[in-house]
C-alpha cells in the first residue's frame, strides 16, 4: 500500500492557534490586555472589544495581508503594520485610531471605491456589507476621482448557485482561499493580473463546489450572490430563527431567515464543534420545496382507488378503524423516525408500543442497520487531531459534506492519513489510500487486523493486512467512519478498537447514517428490540425487513409509515413493492407525494423542519434544538399532532403529547429513569438486525453474460425526498448513471454517455453509462435512490444486487424517454393532483 507523502510544510500557522500558551502583555489604544504569545493583533484587539476593520482576513483562513484596510501603528516600527498578520509580542504598543491609521484607512477605502459601482440600492448585500459599513465608519466623505469608472463584467454566471459581479468585487480573495484552503478544491481562482484581476474558475467551467454558498457569506461585499436569494429581500427585513439542518446526520447549525412568513434564505450559525461555521449547499438551498405545488397541503384518503382530499379529522377517522383492528391481532407494524425529531421519534415508538401494543417499530427504511457505535463514540472534533482516518462504506463527501471538510483539513493540513476500505475506488478531495474489499469480507478484515495487532507485530499475515496493522499501531489517534450497514463489520471494528485501545491508542468511531436523525430515532427506541435509551425489551418485535416480508405474505393487516420512503430507499425493491401492495391498510405521514405515499390508503400532510420545533441528534449523539421559523400551511399538521390524534382516536387520549415541549419532557423523563437504572454500563446494546443469510436473494452474478454486480452509490444532490422536489437544488441534480469499468464497457459495447438498461430481480431501470475505473471489473456503481431510476429494483435486502446490462438503441431510448413520464414520481403526482 503506497502511503502518500504529506503536503509541504505550511507557511503560516492557523490564526486560531497562537504559537504558545505563554501570555504576553500588550497595550492597544491605551488599554492593557494579556493574550497568548503569537496572537494576531486583530484578535488581541477583538479581546479588548476594539474592532479593526478587515476584508481579506477571515478567522478560519490563513492571513494573507492583501486588502491593507487593517493597517495599524505599532510603536518602534517605522511603517504601519497589518493587524491581520502581525503577531503580538511582550510590551507591544498598538494604536488603531491614530491619525496615521485613519489616513491609511481612508486611502484604502478611497482606492476600493474608485471603480466600485455604488449600486447599493439594488445590491443584495446592502445592509450587511463591510464596504458600506467601513466607508461609513472610516471612509472619506467623497471620492477625488473625476473620470469615468472602469467597467468589468456584471451578473457573471459562476455556476449553478452563484452569480458574480466583478465590479463590486474588491479582490480580497476570501472566496478563492475558501475554495483552496477549506474546501481543498482549488477551482475558484483569480484570473488576469493587477487591477484587471477577475474571479474565475481554474478550468474555465462552472463553479460546482458543494460548499459554494459559503462564499456568498464570506464575501465582504455584494460580489458573490446566491441565485435563490438574489433580489429577494433586504437584510433588515428578515426575521431570524435558530435552526438545525436536517439534510444529513452532521446536524450543522444554521439560521433560517424569513420575511412575510416565508423562508428567504438560510445562513450559517457557527458551532465550532459541529460545523465550524460552514454549511453545504444541499443544506443551504433545500427549502424551496416547501413552496412547490407538489407539497402536500392536506390529508388524502383513498376512495374507490383514487385519492380524495380529506379533512384532518376524516383522515384520522379513516385510519383509526384499520389500525385498531390490526392492533387487536398484533398484525400491525410501524416504520419511520429517522427523518423526524427526537420527540417525534420517541412519540412514534410510544404510539407503537403503548397504543398499538406492538414492538414492531423500526426507523430503518434503507440498508442502514446501525446508527451508533457500541462504544468509542467519537466527536467530529476528534477528526481534527486524528492521525489515521479509516473509512469503510461511508462516502463522506456525498453523505456528510461538512464532516468531510474536517477530514479534508486533517489530511491536507495536519498530515492525517486517510484509508478507505470498500468495494470501489472512492472520490475524495484529498489524497486517500484505497483497499479494494468486498462488502461482506470487511468484518473478516477487521478480525484479521485485530489478530495482527494483538498477537505481536512481528507476525506477518497477509502482506497488506500487516501493512495496515502497522499503520494502525503507528497511528497516534485513530478515527473510524462507517455507514452502519454492515453490522458484522461494525462489531469486528469494535473489537479492533478494543485491541487498539488496550495499547493506549486514542480511538473513536463515527457512524454516518443515511437519514438525518437515525441516531436520534435509534436512541428514542424506534428499534424492535430496544426501548428509549437502548434498554432491551422482553419480546422484540419485527424489523423493517421482517415487517415487509410479513406484509408481502399477507401476515400484516396495517402498516403506519411516518417520515420514511421505503418504496424508494429500501434495498429490496421487489419485496417492498409486494409488501405495500399486499398490506390491507397503509397510512403514511409525509410532506411530499413520495413513492410510498402514492400507494397509501391514507396520507397525512406533515409539517417540515422549518414549521415545527424540536431536537435532532447528530451522528456524535449530540442533541441540538431547532425552532419553528414559519407557520405550516392550513391542513398541514406536525407528526406529533398526527400521532397524538391517532392515539386519541384509538382511545388512548393523552398518551402521546401533541406539542414538542411536552413530548421532550416525556423523552427526558424516560432517559433519566433509564440512566439511573443502567449505572456505569458503557457499551450500548445493539439494535436487532436481520440474519445476513435472510437478506441475500441468492442471485449469482454470471460474469460471462451481460451481468454486472450492482452497488448503489450516493450523491449529495441525488436521492429522493426534499432534494428531489426542490427547485433550489434542481440545477445540481445528477441524472441517473451507472459507472462501469472500461473492460466491461468493451465487453458490453458501451461508451460513456450511452443509455443502458439494467434489468434485475425487481424490474429494470434506464441510466446513463459512465466509463471509469472507479468501478471494479464486473461491477456497476449505480446512483442510489433516484425516483426516475430506482436502483432498488435491482437489489436484494442486503443492499447489493445484480443486473443484466443492455445498451439502448436510439429508437428504444426515444421510447424510453416518452415513457418516462409515467415513472413512480409522476404516478404520485398524477394521483395526488387528481385527488386534490
Amino acid at each position, binding site marked *: 500500500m503506497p502511503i502518500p507523502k504529506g503536503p509541504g510544510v505550511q*507557511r503560516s500557522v492557523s490564526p486560531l492557534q497562537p504559537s504558545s500558551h505563554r501570555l504576553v502583555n500588550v497595550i492597544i489604544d491605551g488599554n492593557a490586555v494579556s493574550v497568548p504569545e503569537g496572537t494576531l493583533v486583530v484578535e488581541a484587539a477583538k479581546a479588548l472589544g476594539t474592532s479593526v476593520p478587515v476584508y481579506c482576513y477571515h478567522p478560519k483562513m490563513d492571513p494573507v495581508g492583501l486588502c491593507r484596510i487593517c493597517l495599524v501603528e505599532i510603536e518602534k516600527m517605522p511603517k504601519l503594520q497589518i493587524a491581520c498578520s502581525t503577531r503580538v509580542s511582550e510590551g507591544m504598543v498598538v494604536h488603531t485610531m491614530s491619525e496615521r491609521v485613519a489616513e491609511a484607512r481612508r*486611502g484604502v477605502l478611497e482606492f476600493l471605491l*474608485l471603480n466600485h459601482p455604488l449600486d447599493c440600492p439594488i445590491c443584495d448585500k446592502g445592509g450587511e456589507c463591510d464596504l458600506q459599513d467601513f466607508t461609513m465608519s472610516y471612509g472619506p466623505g467623497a471620492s477625488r476621482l473625476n473620470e469615468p469608472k472602469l467597467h468589468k463584467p456584471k451578473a457573471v454566471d459562476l455556476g449553478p448557485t452563484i452569480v458574480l459581479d466583478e465590479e463590486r468585487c474588491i479582490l480580497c480573495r476570501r472566496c478563492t482561499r475558501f475554495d483552496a484552503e477549506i474546501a481543498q478544491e482549488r477551482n475558484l481562482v*483569480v484570473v488576469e493580473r493587477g*487591477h484587471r484581476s477577475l474571479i474565475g474558475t481554474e478550468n474555465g467551467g462552472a463553479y460546482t463546489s458543494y460548499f459554494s454558498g459559503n462564499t456568498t457569506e464570506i464575501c465582504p461585499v455584494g460580489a458573490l450572490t446566491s441565485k435563490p436569494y438574489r433580489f429577494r429581500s433586504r437584510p433588515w427585513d428578515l426575521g431570524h430563527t435558530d435552526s438545525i439542518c436536517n439534510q444529513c446526520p452532521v446536524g450543522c447549525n444554521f439560521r433560517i431567515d424569513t420575511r412575510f412568513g416565508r423562508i428567504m434564505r438560510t445562513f450559517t450559525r457557527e458551532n465550532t464543534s459541529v460545523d465550524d461555521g460552514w454549511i453545504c449547499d444541499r443544506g443551504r438551498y433545500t427549502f424551496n420545496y416547501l413552496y412547490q405545488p407538489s407539497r402536500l397541503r392536506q390529508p388524502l384518503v383513498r376512495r374507490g382507488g383514487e385519492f380524495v382530499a380529506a379533512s384532518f379529522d376524516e383522515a384520522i377517522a379513516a385510519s383509526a378503524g384499520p389500525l385498531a383492528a390490526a392492533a387487536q391481532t398484533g398484525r400491525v407494524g410501524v416504520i419511520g423516525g429517522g427523518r423526524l425529531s427526537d420527540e417525534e421519534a420517541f412519540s412514534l415508538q410510544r404510539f407503537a408500543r403503548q397504543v398499538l401494543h406492538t414492538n414492531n417499530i423500526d426507523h430503518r427504511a434503507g440498508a442502514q442497520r446501525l446508527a451508533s457505535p457500541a462504544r468509542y463514540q467519537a466527536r467530529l472534533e476528534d477528526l481534527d487531531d486524528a492521525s489515521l482516518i479509516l473509512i469503510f462504506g461511508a462516502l463522506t463527501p456525498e453523505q456528510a459534506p461538512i464532516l468531510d471538510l474536517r477530514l479534508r483539513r486533517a489530511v491536507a493540513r495536519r498530515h492525517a492519513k486517510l484509508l478507505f476500505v470498500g468495494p470501489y475506488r472512492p472520490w475524495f478531495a484529498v489524497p486517500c489510500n484505497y483497499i479494494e474489499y468486498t462488502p461482506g469480507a470487511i468484518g473478516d478484515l477487521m478480525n484479521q487486523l485485530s489478530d495482527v495487532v494483538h498477537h505481536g507485530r512481528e507476525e506477518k499475515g497477509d502482506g497488506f493486512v500487516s501493512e495496515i496493522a502497522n499503520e494502525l499501531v503507528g497511528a497516534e489517534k485513530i478515527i473510524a467512519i462507517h455507514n452502519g450497514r454492515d453490522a458484522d463489520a461494525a462489531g469486528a471494528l469494535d473489537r479492533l478498537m478494543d485491541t487498539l485501545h488496550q495499547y493506549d491508542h486514542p480511538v473513536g468511531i463515527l457512524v454516518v447514517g443515511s437519514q438525518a436523525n437515525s441516531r436520534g430515532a435509534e436512541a428514542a427506541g424506534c428499534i424492535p428490540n430496544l426501548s428509549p435509551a437502548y434498554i432491551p425489551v422482553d419480546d422484540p418485535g419485527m424489523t423493517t425487513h421482517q415487517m415487509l416480508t410479513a406484509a408481502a405474505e399477507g401476515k400484516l393487516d396495517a402498516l403506519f409509515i411516518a417520515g420514511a420512503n421505503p418504496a424508494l430507499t429500501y434495498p429490496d425493491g421487489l419485496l417492498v413493492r409486494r409488501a405495500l401492495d399486499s398490506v390491507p391498510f397503509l397510512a403514511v405521514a409525509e410532506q411530499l407525494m413520495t413513492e410510498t405515499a402514492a400507494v397509501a390508503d391514507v396520507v397525512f400532510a406533515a409539517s417540515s423542519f422549518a414549521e415545527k420545533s424540536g431536537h435532532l441528534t447528530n451522528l456524535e449523539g449530540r442533541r441540538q434544538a431547532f425552532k419553528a421559523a414559519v407557520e405550516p400551511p392550513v391542513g398541514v399538521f406536525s407528526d406529533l399532532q398526527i400521532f397524538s390524534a391517532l392515539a386519541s382516536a384509538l382511545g388512548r387520549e393523552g398518551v402521546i403529547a401533541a406539542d414538542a415541549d411536552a413530548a421532550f419532557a416525556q423523552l427526558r423523563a424516560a432517559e433519566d429513569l433509564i440512566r439511573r437504572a443502567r449505572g456505569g454500563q458503557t457499551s450500548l446494546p445493539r439494535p436487532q438486525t436481520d440474519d445476513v443469510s435472510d437478506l441475500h436473494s441468492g442471485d449469482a452474478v454470471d460474469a460471462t453474460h451481460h451481468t454486472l454486480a450492482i452497488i448503489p452509490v450516493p450523491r449529495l444532490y441525488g436521492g429522493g425526498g426534499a432534494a428531489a422536489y426542490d427547485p433550489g437544488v434542481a440545477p445540481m441534480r445528477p441524472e441517473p448513471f451507472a459507472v462501469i469499468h472500461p473492460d466491461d464497457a468493451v465487453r458490453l459495447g458501451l461508451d460513456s454517455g450511452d443509455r443502458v438498461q439494467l434489468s434485475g430481480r425487481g424490474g429494470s431501470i434506464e441510466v446513463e453509462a459512465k466509463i471509469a475505473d472507479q468501478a471494479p471489473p464486473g461491477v456497476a456503481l449505480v446512483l442510489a435512490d433516484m425516483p426516475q431510476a430506482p436502483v432498488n429494483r435491482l437489489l436484494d435486502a442486503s443492499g447489493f444486487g445484480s443486473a443484466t446490462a443492455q445498451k439502448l438503441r436510439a429508437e428504444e431510448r426515444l421510447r424510453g424517454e416518452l415513457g418516462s413520464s409515467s415513472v413512480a414520481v409522476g404516478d404520485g403526482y398524477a394521483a395526488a393532483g387528481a385527488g386534490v
Partner: protein
Amino acid sequence: MAAFEPVLTKGIGELDLADIDVYKQHGGFSALEKALKEMTPEAIVGEVSASNLRGRGGAGFPTGKKWSFLPKDGRPRYLVCNCDEAEPGTFKDHMLLRLTPFAIIEGLIISAYAINASHVVMYIRGEFLEGYRIFKRALAAASAAGYLGKDIMGSGFTMELILHRGAGAYICGEETAMLESIEGKRGEPRLKPPFPANAGLYGMPTVVNNVETLCCVPHIINRGAGWFSAIGPPKCPGPKIISVSGNVANPGNYEIPMGISARELLEEYAGGLLPGRRLKAIQPGGGSSAAIFEEDLNVGIDFDSLAAKKTMLGSGGFVVMDDRTCLVRASQTLVRFFEHESCGQCTPCREGGQWVARMVGRLEAGEGSVNDLRVLGVINNTITGTNLCPLGDSIMPFLSSVLRRFPEEFAAHVQQAGCPFQKAPEFSAA
C-alpha cells in the same frame, strides 16, 4: 579615472569567457577548488560575512547575514539565483549571463556549498532567450567538466542545478513571488514572515541571491574578505556594475568601486552629457528610485549615501535625463509600467497604481486638471509603504521627486492643455 581594476567585468569584451577553457585559463574555478578543498562551509560564510558584501539585487541586504539566518534543523535547503532582471534601466545581470556565465555557475556552486544546498534553481527572466541558451550550454560544459552533479571535484559535495525560465512578469523578481513561480503558482509575493530563510521554496529554508552578488563570491574566496572590504566605503564595499543609460555620451555597463560620486560616474565613466545639454534628473537605482538632480551630483554611489538622499542604489540602473526630457512623460512611462506589472494583491498598489497612471496619462495628453496635481502631490502617503511587497512602493518615488523639484513643469501641462515638449519619436536610433 581612478586606478580601479575591474573585477567582475574583467576580460569581458576581450575574451570569450562563455568558453569554459578560456574561463579556466584566466583563473576560472580556482576559487571553487579552493572553497571545496581548503574551506569548510562555515569558513566560507564567515569570509563572505567579513567582506561586508551586500546583495546587488536592490535591497542591499548583507549576504553573509542572509546565509547565516538558515535554521540548522536538518531540513533540505535551496539556493535560488535571481536572474529575473527586469528593473527599468538595469541590464547588468543580462550582460553577466551572456558574457561570463561560468562566473555565475562558480559563484552558485560555492554559495550552495557554503549553505549546504544540494539543489539550486537558476531563475532566468523569460525574455532573456539568448542568455538562457548561452547559460544552458555553459551548464552542459560545467557538468561535463565535473563541476556539477555528484561529488564535485572529489569533495563529496553534490549539487544539482535546475534552470527555470520566467514567463515575463516583473513581479517574479521579488524573491517570494519567484518562489511561487518556481512552484508553478501565480507569481505573487508572499506574506512575510515567515521569511524564505525559514520557509521558502516548497516550505524549506531558502536563500535567494542576485546574479551579481553570486559573481562577487569567487573573488572574495580567492582574494579574501579584507581585499573586498577595502574597496569603497567599509559598510557597503566592493565593485559594482552600474548600467548607465539615457542622455549620456557613452551609455553602457560600467564597473566602479562603490562610493565614487555620481558626478565621477557621469563624467569620467559615461562621457558626460551630450554636447550643449543640461542635466535635469537622474534615477540612480532603476525605475523604482526617486530622482537626484544637478545639486546632488556629489552623492556617493553606494547604498548608504543614496539612502541618505532619500533615494536608493537599487539594482544600479543609472538613468540620465537631460533638459529635453518631459518629466510628466517620463513619469507616465514608469507609472504605466508598475501599474501593468502590479500583481493585484494589495489594494493601494492595484487601485492606486491604475489611478495614478490615469491621472498622469491625462496630464500628458493635455486633459489634466489642478485637482489631479493636488491629488498627485499627496497620494504618495497612501500608496507608498502600505503594501505587501516593494512594487507598490516603486510607483510613486520618481513621480513625487520630480513633482516636488519641477512643479512648474507639471503645472505647464495643465495650463497649456498639453505637453510643452517636442514629442520624442517612439524609437530613437541614437
